[in-house]
């Protein structure tokens, strides 16, 4: 009666060889799905956050707090890199931009970079007595 475990058996070796070829390809495909899905989700979250942040800043409130709140709600613990945005102000406008590059890791090495960019340009809401200037 043969033993339960026969290491010299060649049964199943052809399947194993086949999987040796196909599994890496399937894993790469799965990796592409995950990376792309996360990238698009991050872009959408940042687009929404800068829109909300600039409008909030435009009415004189803490726009950065609102922006962080929105991006944290969408990304959870992964929102840390988006904690600081570039905020530019003019006399009658406020512009909030996010421009962040993060590495894509695979098997411990950097395979590529993904860039997340978003911007919103809001009016600084206030009473302006007279027309004139670049922005009214």
């Amino acid at each position, binding site marked *: 009666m043969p033993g339960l475990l026969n290491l010299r058996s060649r049964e199943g070796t052809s399947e194993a*060889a086949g999987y040796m070829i196909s599994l890496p390809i399937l894993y790469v*495909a799965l990796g592409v799905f995950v990376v792309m899905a996360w990238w*698009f989700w991050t872009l959408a979250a940042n687009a929404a956050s800068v829109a909300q942040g600039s409008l909030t800043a435009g009415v004189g409130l803490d726009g950065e707090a609102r922006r962080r709140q929105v991006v944290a709600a969408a990304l959870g613990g992964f929102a840390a890199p988006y904690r600081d945005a570039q905020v530019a102000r003019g006399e009658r406008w406020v512009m909030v931009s996010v421009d962040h590059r993060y590495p894509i890791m695979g098997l411990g090495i950097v395979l590529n970079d993904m860039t997340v*960019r978003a911007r919103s*340009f809001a009016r600084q809401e206030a009473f302006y007595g007279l027309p004139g200037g670049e922005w009214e």
Partner: protein
Amino acid sequence: MIRSRRGLSELIGLLLALPLIITAIGATVYFGRALYLQAALEDTAAVGARWASTSLSGQQGCAQALEAMRRTLSGYYIDPSGARISVSAEEVWGRGLYARVRVSYRLDQRAVPVFGGLLGPITVRAGYSTPIDTYNARHSEGGWSQCSG
């Protein structure tokens, strides 16, 4: 050994599955790019409508809306010159004017595998309207100006 048939069935299975995998990746990229552009255009249209509706002189709303929308698009790394933008004023229910902004962008998808060739470029559109602030536009005498770019 070249003549070995080990793993042949799995290899054939993989060859059959590979087009499906590439198609699925192509669909993800194709619709993902369009989704990103849609998000950017929605925000751009909202920004433009807000700027269009407030102009103290009544003459600069459209021009500053166009400029604000271009700045917003460039922040998304989207070429503003490729966008078609129209800004107009429409009367709704006899309750004053609304600034209506429409923006569309023809997205070149040729580089996307499978779907880029099958479906070709895609045109994404977004629109937004907001009431024209009569208090902040009270200096208007010649009416609200329209434009496109």
